[in-house]
């Protein structure tokens, strides 16, 4: 495709009518002397390779549909839950509690308390250096994570008037223990409190089950609690 001003190409020159047209733009002309008749097809046999390929493909299709078809049941959502595949288990990997805590924090808490744990001034309280986090025992913090707390709440000398999101139904004991441990022991924030076990969380979860229907804790209720959860 040369520009219209360039010299005419020599190859189509055997047809006089194509002269004077810009070279290299042969199908852009209105009365195209070189326009071919309407296209047709050649007859050739299909190669054996293709036939073998087709046969392989169809066998694979049959196998795959049977293996991952879930028995064509409307309530089977797991493609591995039927027939040959049922034996295959998909056990979730066991995670190091610190890594699990970091993950839960990043995906849940950081939305308000921010990834650096400093919160938003006037909006969401900080966790770094917070007296609520660094209390000698985790009794209050576990309750706050389970059923949330209603502001106003004093943290590090400032008051925050907001309401937290409860996590009783969305996080399990292991996750809550991991995330509280992560927050209490996060050295980058200067937090050096003791870790928490899933058993401690489970105990408080069971004990406060009836209380949870009443909504978030109030600051007064929490302050009335001892630091350490008394042993049952």
């Amino acid at each position, binding site marked *: 495709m040369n520009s219209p001003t360039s010299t005419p190409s020599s190859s189509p020159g055997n047809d006089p009518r194509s002269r004077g047209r810009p070279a290299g733009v042969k199908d852009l002309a209105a009365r195209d002397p070189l326009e071919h008749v309407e296209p047709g097809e050649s007859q050739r046999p299909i190669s054996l390779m293709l036939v073998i390929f087709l046969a392989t493909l169809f066998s694979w299709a049959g196998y795959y549909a049977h293996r991952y078809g879930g028995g064509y049941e*409307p309530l089977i*959502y*797991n493609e591995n839950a039927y027939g040959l595949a049922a034996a295959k288990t998909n056990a979730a990997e066991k995670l190091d509690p610190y890594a699990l805590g970091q993950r*839960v924090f990043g995906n*849940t808490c950081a*939305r308000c308390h921010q990834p650096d744990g400093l919160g*938003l001034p006037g*909006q969401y309280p900080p966790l770094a250096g917070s007296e609520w986090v660094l209390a000698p025992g985790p009794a209050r913090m576990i309750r706050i994570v389970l059923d949330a707390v209603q502001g106003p709440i004093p943290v590090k000398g400032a008051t925050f008037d*907001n*309401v937290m999101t409860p996590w009783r139904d969305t996080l399990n004991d292991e996750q809550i223990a991991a995330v509280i441990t992560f927050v209490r022991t996060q050295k980058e924030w200067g937090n050096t409190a003791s870790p928490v076990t899933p058993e401690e969380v489970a105990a408080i979860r069971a004990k406060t089950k009836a209380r949870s229907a009443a909504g978030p804790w109030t600051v007064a209720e929490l302050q009335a609690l001892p630091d350490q959860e008394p042993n049952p």
Partner: protein
Amino acid sequence: MNYGPILFLGIFLTVASSWCGLVLIPHLQFGRQQPVKIEETGELYPQSRPGIAQQGMAVYQANGCIYCHTQQVRAEHFGADIARNWGQRRTVARDYIFDKPVMLGTMRTGPDLTNIGLRQNSVTWHLQHLYTPVITSKGSIMPPFRFLFEQRKIGAKPSPDAVPLPKEYAPEPGYEIIPKAEAKALVQYLLSLKASAPLPETR
């Protein structure tokens, strides 16, 4: 293949086959599911949405939230949906029986919203986030929906509806930011997004 009617018959039958297989059979097989009673709580699940949340759904539709947010959680062995805490279980067809339209979505430019009502239940947070997303989520590329709010001169006393904003995003002194009805409804819709009831077929 020079005989028109045969050609036409083939064309008809092929498309009819997939219409039967991907539309008709699914409709007959799982297009009439009903809510079920959850053993643990004794409640029926799912429940239809209250009116204001339903209006919020229209706002969600109109502003194309679906192009960046999904409403589906994949199984534990498939992707990191559950590890990212987008849900405690996968979602199944029964979770959606009251949705018209069903907005599963196909893009996750933003996070999944199936359980956003559980993961973030603060109205204030949602209003701040809709007003200017980077207030609450630094680094976010979500567009601000400031047209769902109005700036008003503060009257005799500040409105209880006013959105609390950090200094750098607050309007000039003497003014406050009030969510319009659309913004309030949208937040109610977001808070209504929950798919946590332990349905038997999710196991």
